[in-house]
């Protein structure tokens, strides 16, 4: 179902209740395009296929973790601190991405959107788990 922006504004409480019970709504605004009000649970499910594949490098001066999906890195004297640094780095990237239209529309950053959305939905502990989750197929 698509409704116009003014109608959505007037019925936001109902649309919110619908969204969190798995009924998303398309909202159209003239000249601005369309947005979708969707429940967090549903969006988490939709972003599930977008796995993170961090690469760990044990280097002479410490440990580095490169995250190819967002092209960011964490680093520290050991694996735990590099991992913590990576979570912080993902948070920094998401904040930059949301704050700056030029970044999120850049040809080399636009493809990051699914992983940005996924990161946005997760708290730190969940994000850490998602970053280091075992792939469905490890072959």
């Amino acid at each position, binding site marked *: 179902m698509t409704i116009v922006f003014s109608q959505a504004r007037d019925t936001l409480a109902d649309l919110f209740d619908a969204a969190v019970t798995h009924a998303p709504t398309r909202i159209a605004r003239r000249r601005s395009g369309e947005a979708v009000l969707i429940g967090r649970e549903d969006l988490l499910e939709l972003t599930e296929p977008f796995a*993170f*594949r*961090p*690469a*760990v*490098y*044990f*280097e*002479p*001066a*410490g*440990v*580095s*973790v*490169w995250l*190819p999906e967002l*092209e960011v*890195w964490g*680093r520290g004297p*050991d*694996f735990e601190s590099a*991992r*913590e*640094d990576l979570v*912080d*780095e993902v*948070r*920094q990237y998401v*904040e*930059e991405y949301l*704050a700056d239209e*030029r*970044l999120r*529309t*850049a*040809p*080399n*950053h636009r493809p990051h959107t699914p992983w940005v959305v996924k990161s946005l939905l997760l708290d730190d502990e969940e994000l850490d788990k998602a*970053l*280091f*989750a*075992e*792939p469905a197929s*490890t072959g």
Partner: protein
Amino acid sequence: MATFRDLKTYLERDGGWEEIPNLVRGRRRVGDHWRYRKVLPDGTVLRTKVSHALDEEIGPDLFGHIVRDQLGTTMQHFRDVVAGRMPERAASEQATPQPIPGWLVERLIHTVGLPEEEVRAMSVEEARAAWEGYRRGQQ
């Protein structure tokens, strides 16, 4: 081997890089870096960060990702700019490092219980074999 001081020198000499603020407040690690961004004519946005520990060496694998994936250039161009020579910007190089996947390092340290030093010394194949051996032992 390059240090973070070399990286900072590159960003200051290459031209077009601007320092950007840390957006994630109250976190322990994000403040440990300077952050930079450069917008190319085609809209590509390059971004990287420099550790405040300027004299620390950047491991070769992470350095490869920084030069290739974040700076979008080549080792030769990087070295030339740091040395004060100003060559034409080159297209980035392709490289195929063999890192250990993040999930595998996490499992070997936290599930199998191997010391980080032991994991550090493993090749990717050895790490996978250690994980498979552990799983077979659990069945």
